[in-house]
């Protein structure tokens, strides 16, 4: 009887565990809580791409993909719990989808030998792979975003923004403060006046900030917002009749969710991006055929083609391409997190590769290396067309000002290395 019980227990354990031959990817999602409206489309895009690979290609390199989703509610403690509870499943890479969670996972994941991909968020100086061996933030980071915003302003002002007044409206948190240093450095170079307007969390009340903007009349407003702060800021800008085309949000302030509550008045609002918009790509036809029509779409299947769905899909695509690279480097399809890290460090995305994947002109081309875990810092600008109800890409991808950013990344990462007794270097 005892033997039978043990056998049954072992059988149950084996059945409950993920098949070890599978490639496990984790999805730290937030489908509940105040930020669910943003978390759902990203998680759907991330899941749908892997479902597509499983259904259409039989996984990656013949290995089926096992996606482990864990609900964080956009809460840092819960995110860390998710990491701790899922890392045993052999997850190849973590997308924390929160700057707070990323900061917590940097030392943990590095110690565990698991790579983290904080795409367009997290610690900017993680770009320096000599210090942050397991953290990747390609294709662009916050400082790239700030620089691309200024480049766009230079472009529309004939290359001269000296004397212009630029206001930064930002979430009063570590995330919101990220672009300040970059914008200050760039103001020295380009001669614009920068004013800083912090908004307290969660950002439902911003009257003081927008009255100040109305008083000071800056030429441009750049926004580093998140969640309800975005919708309120756009509505307040409409209320004071600030020209929408002079209002630029970071990529986390540029989804349909952010502009729709203000209705037609939000027309012309701009946002940065590091991937393209819409669903007019051959890959989306496959998503329709293999995922949606097959009844396998994540969530309600109603987010396809939205900005944040595309971002989730793009993150999954980059993870899959890194896994393929790892398989190639190590000559095995059953890769480990350590091998995945190598794959990420040797990832190269070209236009040819993306076209072959069915995503032509979807994201910038970039190459990752040990010295550069952040890609080449390309971003573009999108603009909201309220009548059509869609975002439109209005610029080509442009590279951030590496002359200004590289020393900042080096200084910040070296300080981190010193604090944590890390000897920078490449393996």
């Amino acid at each position, binding site marked *: 009887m005892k033997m039978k019980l043990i056998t049954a227990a072992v059988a149950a354990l084996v059945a409950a565990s993920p098949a070890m031959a599978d490639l496990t990817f984790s999805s730290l999602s937030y489908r509940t*809580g105040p930020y669910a409206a943003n978390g759902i489309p990203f998680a759907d895009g991330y899941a749908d791409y892997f479902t597509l690979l499983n259904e259409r290609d039989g996984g990656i390199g013949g290995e089926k993909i096992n996606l482990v989703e864990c609900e964080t509610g956009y809460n840092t403690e819960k995110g860390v719990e998710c990491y701790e509870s899922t890392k045993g499943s052999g997850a190849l890479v973590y997308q924390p989808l929160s700057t707070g969670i990323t900061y917590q996972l940097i030392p943990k994941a590095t110690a565990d030998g698991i790579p983290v991909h904080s795409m367009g968020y997290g610690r900017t100086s993680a770009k320096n792979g000599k210090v942050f061996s397991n953290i990747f933030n390609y294709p662009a980071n916050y400082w790239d975003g700030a620089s691309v915003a200024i480049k766009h302003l230079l472009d529309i002002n004939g290359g001269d923004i000296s004397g212009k007044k630029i206001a930064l409206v930002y979430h009063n948190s570590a995330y919101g403060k990220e672009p300040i240093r970059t914008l200050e450095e760039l103001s020295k170079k380009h001669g614009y006046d920068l004013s800083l307007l912090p908004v307290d969390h969660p950002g439902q009340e911003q009257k003081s900030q927008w009255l100040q903007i109305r008083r000071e009349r800056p030429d441009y407003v750049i926004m580093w917002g998140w969640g309800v702060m975005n919708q309120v800021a756009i509505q307040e800008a409409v209320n004071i009749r600030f020209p929408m085309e002079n209002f630029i949000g970071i990529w986390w302030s540029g989804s349909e969710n952010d502009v729709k509550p203000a209705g037609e008045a939000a027309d012309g609002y701009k946002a940065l991006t590091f991937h393209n918009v819409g669903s007019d790509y051959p890959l989306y036809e496959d998503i329709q055929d293999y995922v949606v029509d097959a009844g396998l779409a994540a969530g309600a299947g109603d987010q396809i083609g939205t900005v944040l769905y595309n971002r989730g899909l793009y993150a999954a695509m980059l993870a899959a391409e890194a896994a393929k690279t790892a398989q190639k480097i190590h000559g095995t399809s059953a890769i480990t997190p350590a091998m995945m890290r190598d794959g990420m460090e040797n990832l190269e995305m070209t236009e040819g590769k993306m076209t072959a994947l069915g995503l032509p002109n979807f994201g910038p081309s970039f190459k990752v290396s040990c010295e550069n875990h952040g890609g080449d810092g390309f971003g573009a600008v999108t603009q909201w067309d309220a009548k059509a109800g869609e975002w439109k890409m209005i610029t080509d991808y442009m590279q951030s000002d590496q002359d200004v950013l590289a020393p900042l990344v080096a200084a910040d990462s070296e300080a981190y290395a010193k604090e944590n007794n890390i000897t920078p270097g490449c393996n």
Partner: protein
Amino acid sequence: MPTQLLFGAEVFLNGLMAGVLYALVALGFVLIYKASGIFNYAQGVMALFAALTLVGIMDGQVPFSHLINAMLGTDVHHFGWHVNALISIILTMGVMIVLAYCVQQFVFRHLVGQEPIILFMATIGLAYFMEGFGDLMWGSDIKKLDVGLPQGGSFWIEENSQWLGFGNEEFYGFFLDQLDIVATGIAAILVIVLVLFSQYTKQGRAMRAVADDHQAALSVGISLNFIWVMVWSVAGFVALVAGIMWGAKSGVQFSLSLIALKALPVLMLGGFTSIPGAIVGGLIIGVGEKMFEFIVGPMVGGATENWFAYVLALLFLVFRPQGLFGEKIIERV
């Protein structure tokens, strides 16, 4: 008049308007606390739930559509009709009354005589339940709320106050958001109606009797169950009004439940048991935080509003724990 003085006056006026919006949220807390001694942690979520229900009814959204579709394999989301805003508000009020009945019947009826902290914990549970229930019922996407309220700065006020600058080009006239002006009017009407209701109607007097002494009210034949359902319904109505005003600014989304954070310092200041206290407290906090941000903010890097509101509330707690209008706390040893 010096420009800075004009700007200060503009900030003052906008602070008053913001204070009214804070007071709207605080009112719901006061009503329930006054009548039943329960600090209703779920008041913010009630505002969210009411706003979600209102938008859902207006847009003809099928409730629980995601659940229905997942279970039955269907693809239904909308009934295909749009309901008039006024009818939707009435229907939403009906839903809030049903909710009040359920809360009383299934939660607080079983907790009569329990310690206040138990009742408070129950409202925390209620908040989480309602948040999840609202999500399941109406989905978690951000919804545009359009009940026909005007938005944006008032041109009329702007143009007709420009002369105050005496030709100063830096002064463009006062900015006042039309939505805030409407909210002020609605809040004034709401308070008058609440006062009239509690002073001059049988149910209102019964509500006050229950607030004064449960046992005595019970002994003269007042039904506690009925009164509490009524109070939760009135608080539901106040939550609906707050949900409409705040939802019109930011869209109806789950962050709406966080507006409760704005009500806490107002309650500490005005007192938990006073309707005028909620209004005056709201105005003081609104004006105080905006003026502080205007005068001191630039010297310390800004974002002082939340800090100021809570510090002011803390000072009141130290020197006048019952708040400006709260009942005096007398404990005999």
